C-alpha cells in the first residue's frame, strides 16, 4: 500500500515542486483544502510562502486550523515547510503580533537590520546555506540522518523561529552571525525552514526518509 499525503492548498506557495518531490519518493499525493480528504490521509504537509498573519487568517477562514490540530492528535506525521514551519509556532512578530498553531512553543522574529560588523543584512535571506545538527540523538532519529553534516539547502525567508525548548531543534543554520533553528522535530511533527524540494537530491533524501517514517513510524 502506498502512503497518501495531503498537501494543504490555501493559495500560498509553489505546490508543484512539493508534489513532485513526494511523488518521486513513492507517495500518493492530493492537493486539497477539503477537511475530509485531510482526515483520510496518512500524512499532512503544510506549505506556504508570504505573510504569517495572512496565512493564519486564511487557514482559519477555511477551518483548516482546526483540521490540522485534529489531524495531529491522531499521531499521524505532519510536515511544515518554510512559512508552514513558522505557522507551527506560538506567535509571530511579523506585521504586528499574530497567533500561530502553537504546536511548538516559541516565536517567529525578523532578521536584524545589521550584523555585528554593522553591515546591512540583506532580507530575505536567499541563498544555499548549510545545516548543522543540534545533537546526534535527535539527528539520528530524524529524516536528516542520511545527510552529511553541513549539507547545503536552499533557503528563502525573512523571519526565523526561536523555539522555547532547545530539544525541539533538529538543525541550526547561520545567517549573518545569527545562529537559528533551521528545522524542528517533536513527536509526529517536523518543521523545515528551507526548501528540500528545491535542494537537489540531498533535499529529496529528506522526503525519502519522511516517506519511510509515514509507513514504518521510524526514520
Amino acid at each position, binding site marked *: 500500500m502506498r502512503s497518501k499525503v495531503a498537501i494543504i492548498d490555501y493559495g500560498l506557495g*509553489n505546490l508543484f515542486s512539493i508534489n513532485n518531490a513526494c511523488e518521486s519518493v513513492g507517495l500518493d499525493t492530493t492537493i486539497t483544502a477539503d477537511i475530509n480528504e485531510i482526515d483520510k490521509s496518512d500524512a499532512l504537509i503544510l506549505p506556504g510562502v508570504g*505573510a504569517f498573519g495572512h496565512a493564519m487568517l486564511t487557514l482559519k477562514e477555511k477551518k483548516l486550523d482546526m483540521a490540522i490540530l485534529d489531524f495531529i492528535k491522531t499521531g499521524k506525521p505532519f510536515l511544515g515547510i518554510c512559512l508552514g514551519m513558522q505557522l507551527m509556532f506560538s506567535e509571530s512578530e511579523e506585521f504586528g503580533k499574530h497567533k500561530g498553531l502553537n504546536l511548538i512553543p516559541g516565536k517567529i522574529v525578523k532578521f536584524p537590520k545589521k550584523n555585528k560588523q554593522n553591515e546591512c*543584512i540583506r532580507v530575505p*535571506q*536567499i541563498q*544555499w546555506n548549510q545545516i548543522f545538527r543540534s545533537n546526534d540523538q535527535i539527528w539520528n532519529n530524524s529524516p536528516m540522518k542520511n545527510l552529511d553534516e553541513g549539507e*547545503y539547502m536552499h533557503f*528563502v525567508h*525573512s523571519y526565523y523561529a526561536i523555539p522555547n525548548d532547545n530539544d525541539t531543534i533538529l538543525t541550526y543554520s547561520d545567517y*549573518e552571525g545569527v545562529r537559528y533553528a533551521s528545522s524542528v522535530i517533536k513527536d509526529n511533527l517536523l518543521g523545515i525552514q528551507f526548501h528540500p524540494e528545491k535542494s537537489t537530491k540531498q533535499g529529496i533524501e529528506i522526503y525519502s526518509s519522511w516517506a519511510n517514517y509515514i509507513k514504518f513510524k521510524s526514520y
Partner: protein
Amino acid sequence: MNNIRIIPRLDIKGPNLVKGIHLEGLRVLGRPEDFARYYYENGADELIYQDVVASLYERNSLHQIISRTAKEIVIPFTVGGGLRTIDDIKAVLRAGADKVSLNTAALKDPTIVKMAANKFGSSTIVVAIEAIKKNDGKYYAFIDNGREETGLEVISWAQQIEELGAGEILITSVDREGTGEGFDIELIKNVSAAVNIPVIAHGGGGNLDNIKDAIIDGKASAISIASILHYHAMFKINNSKGGTYEGNKTFMNSGKNFKIIQPCEIVDIKSFLKSNQISCRPLKQ
C-alpha cells in the same frame, strides 16, 4: 559573506534557447530543457528563463517548457517575459516556476508588484531592471528589451521596487549584455547600496575576473550569466543531438571562437571564486 549564487540565464524564443547582444540579434543555441538539465547537473544554484519575444506580443508562451523543466530539475527557477497580470503570474507559478520576474508590467503599473508580493509572497517576486547609461551620466530604466525609454532613474526605481515588496532585483546592463566586456560595476554597486534586498547582477560577464569584480566591487548577491556558459555547454549538448532546431543554426554549427568571451563550466567559476575567498555552494558528485 553569503554564499554567492550562480544563475544561468536562458533566453527563450519559441522552442529555442537563443542568445543575442544588447538583448538583440538573437542566435539559436539549442533546446532550453537540455541546457537547463545540463546546468542543474553541473552545479547551477538557480535558473532564469526569459521569454525574450513575449513582451512584444504581451504573452508568455513558456508554460510547456516550464512544466517539463520543473519535473526534471530540483533547484529554484525564475520565469520572466510578457507577464502582465496577476493571472499571468499565477499561471506560470502553477506550471511549476518558483519565482517570476517582472519588468515592463511593473514599470507601467507599479501596484502589480505590491499586489503580487502580497498574494504570492515577496520572495516569489523578482523585479528586473534593464538599465542604459545616458549622456547625462545617469542610468535609466528601459522596457521591451532595452528598446523603449521610461525616463525613470534606476536608483530611485530600485528603491521603489523594494518598498513595493519585491524580494529581489535583477539588474541588467543593456549596454554590456552579450558583449563579454565585463559587468557594469558602477551600476551594480549603486543598486546594491541603494537597497537591502538581494541584487542579481546581469549583463556583460565574459570571464572569471568579471564575475569576481561584480561580487567584490559590485556587492552583488548573485550572478546571472549566459554567454560564458552557453558557448561551452552548446558543444557538449549539441554534439550528441541531431540538428532539429529552427532559426539561425549557422552560427551554432560554425563553432565560432569568441575573442572576448571565455567559455567555461559552472564548476570552473565556483573553484575560481573559492580560491578568491568567495563562498558558494560546492558541486556535490
